[in-house]
């Protein structure tokens, strides 16, 4: 039985895994999902990717009222891997309106630096992370460079 089948009922996943669309689950079940997968053999922490989606107004169709704007939100995708023969990955997403996501550090020590990096660059707070400092940028840097409203050439520091 594949991991997908085992977890489908419990987490309301779609019928078939999609190659391009990792399932979105509720943020309250984020840690539960990781724990369930870890029990299922997905013991290797691969990556976490936080993406910033600023507020966006979709294009209105002709003759219709413009649809309501999509509010600013963050998506945090997590990938785990089952090591060994016929290794496979499992990815899922959580979507949040405030950039606060529970940490996976108690489950996977490898989440330590990856989450610090996402906090540093995207500004997502991993709640419960014991040591959430900036990893890449200097400690006194302003802003989170990978947010979409952060201009690419915003240099905060004078460097000499």
């Amino acid at each position, binding site marked *: 039985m594949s991991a997908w089948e085992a977890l489908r009922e419990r987490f309301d996943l779609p019928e078939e895994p999609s190659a391009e669309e990792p399932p979105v689950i509720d943020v309250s079940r984020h840690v539960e999902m990781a724990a369930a997968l870890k029990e299922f053999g997905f013991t290797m922490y691969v990556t976490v990717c936080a993406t910033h989606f600023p507020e966006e107004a979709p294009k209105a169709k002709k003759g219709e009222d413009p649809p309501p704007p999509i509010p600013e939100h963050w998506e945090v995708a997590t990938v785990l891997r089952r090591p060994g023969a016929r290794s496979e990955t499992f990815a899922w997403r959580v979507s949040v309106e405030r950039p606060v996501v529970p940490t996976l550090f*108690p489950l996977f020590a490898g989440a330590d630096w990856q989450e610090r990096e996402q906090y540093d660059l995207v500004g997502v707070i991993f709640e419960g992370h014991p040591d959430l400092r900036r990893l890449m940028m200097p400690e006194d840097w302003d802003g989170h460079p990978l947010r979409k409203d952060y201009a690419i050439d915003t240099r905060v520091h*004078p460097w000499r």
Partner: protein
Amino acid sequence: MAVDEGSRNYEHPAYDYMERMPGLSLAMTTVDKVLEWSATNSLWIFPMATSCCAIEFISSAAARVDIDQIGSVVRPTPRHCDVMIVAGTITVKMAPRVKKLWEQMPEPKWCIAMGSCAISGDFYRDIYSVVPGIDTVVPVDVYIPGCPPNADQVLHGLERLQAMIRSDRAGGGMPREERPETAKMINPENRRVGDPERDPSLTDAQHDASRNLGVGANSDRTRDARPIGDIAEDEAADVRGSVDDLEEGA
């Protein structure tokens, strides 16, 4: 040139003695020739090797090229070196260290920017964390273009530097290449935290943001098995003054 080079006209005090000593001043030309010969043929290198170019720089010390031919040795401490070769991208976080290490080198000293990242930032030049050219931080004498330059180009760059030093000693001055756009690239939009010129509202907003999102509230530990201490202990070590914020020799 964006970098103040007023302090670069270094002359060893021995020259002064030699000029005043009767008789020896006649031999100045010969002595100066010997000194120039020795200075150009013993350029010891401090490798500010950060990224890709560092690998090619190591190759230049290896079998095919071997910069040891012209007497260049790589020494790991800036105090022993004559030439700083900046090989690789320098970031905003690293630039103060480069500056400090440059200042730790004894005069007379020269700087070579190796590779397009060190010269102009390459295609990282517009990125928030990258210094667009090391010549905004330290004065550069020789540029070795390439991404990365081949190993033999490093040897060629050193030989160009030798020619420059000879020209300088002969009174021709140090011919150097300039990048005119350097000067206007050094003013950042925002000031560093703690800088009096910084807009206080920025600092307040940052504090508010972190407080609202609960960064400080999260610092209690969740795992007992973790062998390293948490951030508070780390800070404590800093407060006790036991940390040299920057390396002395490294």
